[in-house]
């Protein structure tokens, strides 16, 4: 009896649909990824409001100050003393004046006094921060030479 020898066959998987899908996923993540909000600190729990809308024209050279409490991974407060996050450690708000003054002096040298005054100080403050400290921060900003301030809030209103 004659036995037929089957030739070994190479099975080629069709990769085209997988590559299509992968490219679509990459395109999706590229669009969704927002590299602009890199100055936002996750420890700050912003209050939410419906009326808070992103500015129509994106501001240039603004100074973002994240004011909040040191929190653990679960989001619970570690310290009750709020500070401005500059790197890892929060700096007490009343000690922040020299840095604001440096920012203003640097901007005045680079762009001129008028342009330096137009720079906006964007305050991203935690909902639990005492308002008096925010007022003091604005006052320090005024004393450093700045005139424009913006208070950040989440755009939705579900969190109340």
């Amino acid at each position, binding site marked *: 009896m004659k036995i037929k020898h089957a030739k070994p066959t190479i099975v080629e998987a069709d990769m085209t649909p997988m590559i299509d899908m992968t490219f679509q996923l*990459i395109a999706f993540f590229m669009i969704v990824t927002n590299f602009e909000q890199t100055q936002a600190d996750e420890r700050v729990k912003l209050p939410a*409001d419906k009326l808070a809308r992103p500015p129509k024209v994106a501001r240039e050279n603004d100074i973002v100050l994240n004011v909040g409490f040191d929190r653990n991974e679960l989001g619970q407060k570690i310290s009750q003393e709020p500070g401005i996050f500059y790197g890892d450690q929060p700096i007490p708000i009343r000690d922040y004046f020299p840095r604001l003054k440096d920012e203003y002096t640097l901007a005045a040298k680079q762009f001129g006094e008028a342009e330096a005054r137009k720079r906006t100080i964007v305050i991203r403050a935690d909902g639990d921060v005492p308002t008096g400290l925010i007022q003091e921060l604005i006052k320090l900003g005024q004393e450093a030479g700045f005139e424009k*301030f913006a208070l950040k809030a989440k755009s939705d209103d579900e969190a109340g």
Partner: protein
Amino acid sequence: MKFRKRETDTKVDIQMSAMIDIVFQLLIFFLLTLKIIPPEGDFNINMPIGAVANANDDIPPMDLKVKLEANPDGTLKQLYFGSRALGNDFPFCFERLNQDIAAIAGGQQGYSDDLEVELDPDYGLHYRYIVKAISACRGRIQGDQQVTYIEKIKFAPVDRPE
């Protein structure tokens, strides 16, 4: 003359593995760097030092005062618009403030530049109430559009407790 035998069609195999490697690396990069952050908006506050921004105006802006009193734990104790107490039932007291502001500013379409609100919060009041107060004074959302009542909002001088 001898003709060469016609060459048969050859299938060109493109090396896909290198491209797939890179594509997967890109995919993993974007997956890891993705941070789902809700969109943020902001409220502008103009506070030039000395508060003499309207020194050249013939008619000074009408000053509306909103006072927010705080409990020792930082929650809202009482909200006042002028001398009128609006309660502390968050968030409804801010809706009442919004209605009062609308009654003054809402009817004057295009004249809200003449009005200025001064917010006077207690030192220890939580910041979230101030955002609500600014929002109530700024305007309201009608459908998808924002109706602006008052653009000029400022803070009263800070009153630091001893």
